[in-house]
């Protein structure tokens, strides 16, 4: 940011913003100022109030008290439409796109300036023109569910910009992106800021924040801790402001060589179709033995989702074999099998019942055991105890254990799922993006949990788009591309460049 920008009056001024949910104070007299043309990062642990603050600016929640001024005027947004009209647009953690509709339709939806009546070509042309204007190429005729996550995000951004957003809020935009996509996004954000737009950027990845933010605001438990220039910040200082503790977070490292035993998961020549009926797996072979972590690297959408779902028995393949070994018996997987844990890609879809309480969600894998229920009744005493144990082990921040689990912040939901599943995974743990949306501390803890499981003799299959995570955690590593498993590396001979090439589909890099 230039010197002159420093002296401008703030474009957005937030004063004394407070928001409570029942008794929980999510935001406590928060102050924030944003300058025109700056990229401002919001940092904070899971549940610190970042999403809540953004949602208030974007008209989704209403503050209990406090003022928001934009361009020197007091605003009171009563709906997202209001906020859009006031120049504020938000790209959510969950994209607000209709998957079955086209890019063009998603761009035009709910917008006064889209034509009232149109022909198909008309709609496409207008959309193409808008896409052109912001230089974020994406096919206007494509349906959203055919697009990669990075492209979907572009649609969101284009849509927000086209509606005249001067303040663009991005809630954990990079959590779902590959490193290249992240770089592209950063280019776009820098360009937008240079063009005078203001950006709020939320991320748990401190190095990202350091590389892109002009200034950084840190929230802790709903309170404003500090706002510091990006240039003066260091990872340690940020971590200290976020957690309040001086001790730096130690990186998880491998604890000794793997003592791999018998196979717990065997996949042979597995073929499968995607939900839309297209080939998703083309002959996958894979073995995971007890006491080792096998990592699958790869850009999402190359069959990982289908493979994961088949491994835990919630999807069927078209041919091939999948066998899991629990308690000495080897058989095809059944959903919810004892001894197997599953941290799924989409926690809301496959792990949590949003409207059910945190307590109930904490025991869904265990309530049928004799300690927690008789044949006909639930034993509420032990159930509550067990739930407390999960909550404590996972450091899940929850005010009211009987309130719907959907009210937890994204990261706390993830902590709950990861802990619950790890606890039942005595023999095998399938972890798909296990640290998705977790703050630095919780990420370290979940990775430690995976290590502990391995050391205790469970087999762990780690599927992640985060190459650093896979490299740091795995004893063995393969790459998934186009529905096939490519390459095979053992710890000590991981070759980042070759792995990167394989992820891009360059088979020849598999070598020998």
């Amino acid at each position, binding site marked *: 940011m230039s010197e002159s920008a420093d002296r401008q009056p703030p474009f957005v001024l937030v004063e004394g913003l407070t928001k409570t949910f029942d008794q929980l104070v999510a935001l406590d007299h928060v102050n924030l100022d944003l300058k025109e043309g700056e990229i401002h990062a919001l940092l904070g642990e899971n549940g610190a109030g970042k999403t809540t603050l953004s949602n208030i600016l974007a008209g*989704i929640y209403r503050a209990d008290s406090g003022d928001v001024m934009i361009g020197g005027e007091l605003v009171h947004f009563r709906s997202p439409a209001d906020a859009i009209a006031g120049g504020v647009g938000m790209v959510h953690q969950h994209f*607000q796109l209709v*998957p079955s509709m086209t890019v063009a339709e998603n761009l035009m939806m*709910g917008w006064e300036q889209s034509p*009232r*009546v149109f022909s198909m070509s008309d709609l496409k042309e207008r959309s193409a023109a808008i896409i052109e204007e912001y230089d974020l190429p994406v096919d206007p005729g494509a349906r959203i569910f055919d697009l990669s996550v990075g492209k979907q995000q572009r649609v969101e951004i284009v849509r927000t910009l086209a509606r005249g957003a001067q303040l663009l809020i991005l809630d954990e935009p990079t959590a779902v992106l590959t490193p290249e996509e992240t770089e592209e996004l950063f280019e776009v954000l820098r360009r937008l800021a240079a063009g005078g737009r203001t950006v709020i950027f939320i991320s748990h990845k401190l190095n990202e924040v350091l590389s892109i933010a002009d200034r950084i605001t840190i929230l802790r438990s709903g309170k404003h801790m500090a706002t510091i220039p990006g240039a003066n910040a260091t990872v340690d200082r940020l971590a200290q402001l976020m957690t309040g503790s001086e001790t730096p977070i130690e990186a998880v490292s491998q604890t000794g060589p793997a003592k791999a035993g018998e196979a717990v998961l065997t996949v042979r020549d597995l073929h499968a179709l995607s939900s*839309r009926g297209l080939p998703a797996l083309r002959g996958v072979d894979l073995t995971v033995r007890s006491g080792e972590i096998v990592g699958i690297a790869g850009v999402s959408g190359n069959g990982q989702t289908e493979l994961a779902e088949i491994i835990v028995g919630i999807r069927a393949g078209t041919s091939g074999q999948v066998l899991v070994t629990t308690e000495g018996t080897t058989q095809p997987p059944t959903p919810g099998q004892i001894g197997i844990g599953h941290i799924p890609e989409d926690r809301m879809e496959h792990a949590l019942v949003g409207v059910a309480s945190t307590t109930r969600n904490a025991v869904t894998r265990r309530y049928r055991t004799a300690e927690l229920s008789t044949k006909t009744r639930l034993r509420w005493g032990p159930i509550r105890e067990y739930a407390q144990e999960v909550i404590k082990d996972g450091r899940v921040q929850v005010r009211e254990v009987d309130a719907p689990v959907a009210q937890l912040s994204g990261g706390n939901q993830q902590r709950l799922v990861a802990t619950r599943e790890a606890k039942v995974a005595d023999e095998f743990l399938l972890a798909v993006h296990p640290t998705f949306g977790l703050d630095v501390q919780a990420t370290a803890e979940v990775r430690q949990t995976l290590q502990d499981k391995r050391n205790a003799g469970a087999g762990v299959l780690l599927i992640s788009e985060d190459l650093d995570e896979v490299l740091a955690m795995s004893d063995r590593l393969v790459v998934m591309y186009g529905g096939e498993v490519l390459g095979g590396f053992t710890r000590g001979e991981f070759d980042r460049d070759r792995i990167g090439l394989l992820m891009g589909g360059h088979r020849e890099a598999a070598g020998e």
Partner: protein
Amino acid sequence: MDTLTNVISTAIDAGAVIVFAGMGELLLERTGVLNLGLEGIIAIGAASAVLAAQWASSPFIALGVAILVGAGMGVVFMLTTVVFRANQVLSGLALFLVGTGLAAHLGGPVTGNPSPLTFESVPIPGLAEIPYLGPALFDHDVLVYFGYFIMPFIVWFLLNRTRHGINLRAIGEDPSAADATGVSVMGIRSFYAILGGALAGIGGATLSLAFTPGWTPNVVAGRGWIALAVVIFAMWRPGRLVVGAVLFGALISVSFIAQDRGWNIPGQVLNMLPYLITLALIVVAVLRNLGKRATVAPAALAVPFFREER
């Protein structure tokens, strides 16, 4: 050949109620709201049309009354499901019971009497003279012409060629996404709840002012339920809805004609036919979509929408 002309002609008349009530339901379901109360709204529309016909000077006034009464039922449904977000299935069933009961009560005094006002056939000059086809397609009352020849095009155009149509479909697929982009979820759902009621009211009027003029408590005979099934069969598309309506109309008309001509099929079997086929077609429709996780049904169908939640 004459018989076929006859069957088609009667089928179109018999299917009119399904076209109107089904089209309203189709639009409403496209916004993600399911109204199972059609049967009740049709009944009360049919009864009020006949009652109005006792004093009105024109069948259009009687039709207007049926529209208003149907819309009123739509308002009730809107308040319970869209505004207070009660369970849509239960609210719909309640509406069915209330509507059916109320219609029987209101229609009591005129039960069995022919309606003093009716919609008469208006042959379309020229077209109606085409051999076979003319009498089958172009010799009907104005409601039929509007319902079959005009309304589906309007609805298709609305859904696929207007901004409002995009918003409407978006709500049915993902209300929170629609909301976040500035679409009024409550507003649009409310509007179509009421419009759906009004169209079901017209459906009732086609029965009691045209198809079988007069009021009897069993005049509706499950056609509201069939309309619901036809919406599924039509995969929520207006063009296919019309085809479905004629198909079911044909089944009804075959049983009429069979009775008329004294064909040797038990009446009960004939009467059962439309419902049996409904069942079969629904199963077929469901089976066809089995295995595809992305179904054609609006993704948010029958799910209430709350904003301050995730």
